[in-house]
């Protein structure tokens, strides 16, 4: 048993390390940092000006929402891309043929995205304070950090579900991109969920991120654990459901692909 756990941890770390090497080791610091600065600023400004045009009273709501979406985007897009990337680089059959357990093998790959998402968020928060006057002086910083970590983890479940589609379709990345931009509406990033029609509110609350972003907003405004505990626990549970669903879907699609021999044909 202990040997098995040790082996899984070793595989998880090795998987994370190779994922890091594949994704970032070749990059120079300049483009990486510029990506961390350029993209968040562009995204915040774009929606901020949309808000200005609409006459939104509290533009900081949009800025903070877009900062909080960054770890989630990393989780969703990063994890999905990791699996579809294996397909693009023709390495997916080797992974599928290997006897390694799928959990640590693929979840290890998401560790890099979780860490990168956290880095992105820290960078965006600094930019938010410097350029958009985000006030963190009353924030519950520990709880905010915990909420951001939670968002990074729970979003990986959605990434896993979308990434699993790579086993059955070539268009997994495109589907991921479309779902990712839907989050601008459904996760309460740019405006409160209450303004959405009822059916969209129902979809919104069945997604990870919605409660996590609400909890993080409250923590940033100084709320304590008792205020956000319900939202936090809800986010954690939904995230776990998505991770389990993603893993189950992956195993199911893997079996289907092995049966019909279409792992790279679809």
């Amino acid at each position: 048993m202990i040997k098995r756990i040790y082996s899984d941890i070793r595989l998880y770390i090795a998987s994370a390390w190779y994922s890091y090497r594949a994704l970032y080791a070749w990059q120079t610091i300049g483009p990486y940092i510029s990506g961390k600065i350029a993209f968040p600023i562009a995204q915040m400004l774009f929606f901020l000006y949309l808000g200005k045009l609409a006459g939104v009273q509290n533009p900081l709501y949009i800025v903070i929402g877009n900062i909080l979406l960054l770890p989630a985007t990393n989780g969703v897009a990063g994890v999905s891309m990791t699996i579809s990337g294996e397909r693009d680089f023709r390495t997916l059959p080797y992974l599928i043929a290997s006897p390694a357990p799928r959990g640590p093998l693929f979840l290890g790959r998401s560790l890099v995205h979780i860490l990168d998402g956290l880095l992105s968020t820290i960078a965006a928060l600094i930019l938010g304070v410097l350029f958009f006057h985000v006030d963190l002086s009353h924030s519950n910083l520990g709880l905010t950090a915990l909420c951001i970590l939670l968002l990074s983890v729970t979003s990986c479940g959605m990434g896993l579900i979308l990434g699993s589609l790579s086993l059955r379709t070539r268009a997994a990345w495109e589907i991921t991109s479309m779902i990712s931009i839907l989050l601008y509406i459904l996760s309460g990033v740019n405006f409160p969920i209450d303004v959405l029609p009822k059916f969209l509110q129902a979809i919104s609350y069945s997604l990870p991120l919605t409660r996590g972003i609400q909890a993080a907003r409250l923590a940033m405004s100084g709320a304590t654990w008792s205020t956000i505990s319900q939202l936090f626990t809800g986010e954690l549970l939904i995230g776990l459901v998505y991770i389990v669903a993603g893993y189950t879907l992956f195993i199911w699609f893997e079996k289907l692909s092995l049966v019909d021999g279409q792992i790279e044909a679809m």
Partner: protein
Amino acid sequence: MRLNRLPFVWKQMNVQFRMRTLNLLAFGLTVTQPVIFSAVGYFLARTAGRAQIDFIHTIIGSGVMGMWSTLLFTSFFDLRADRREGTLELLVGSPTSIFSILSIRAFANVLLGCVSFLLSMIVAMSLFGFALPHGNFPYFLVSLAIMLFGFWCIGIFLAHWPVVSRLSGLFLNYLELPIGMLTGFMFPVSLLPAWAQWLSMLTPLSWAFKGLSASFQSDIDLPSLWINWMMTLGISLVFLVGTFFMSKRVQDMIRVTGELSSV
């Protein structure tokens, strides 16, 4: 012997359309993304307690933004796809110049992006009761044609960058929203700081969108519309001529040095 280029143009466009219409990414860029951006604008207006939206920027603008996103991600990544699939060498080795090939592809991509614009017009007319003011149709058509020309020139310019540098891909992903802001598709450029307003004058797309917006107004300011048209054409031509010389230089360079796949 003078060759008839039309069959080549037709075949190239045919292939490009087939590749794009069967591609979910193109659907996402031309349909999903504009709808999402429009919806964000709409819900932001509801958050602000406004019953009306600025339909030119929120609806039409998101359609034009969709054209821009489609052009950016299709034109730029066309050549990267060739490199990945091993067809870049064949393209460069063929007697047809890279400039001709990429121009036709960019044209097909611009036409594909029009789907986005058409959808936004349909939404504006059907859901928001928008009607083009009487007598404005010719101005609208000219404005649209000039805007498409502007998009085409920018598309050719973008399409050449992967030949110039592999690294350009790292930065191009971040161009979509900044250029979308500078062009004022989804909100007026006047909301931007003064330096950004000056910068926006350097892109033909901002003038083109100003011209298109002006053609929707019931009282058209003709001299101003002409300025918008001329500025779009002038700046677009600068991009086109610049790209033509860049293309020749790059094609010569990669043939002489044999560094096609390493750049």
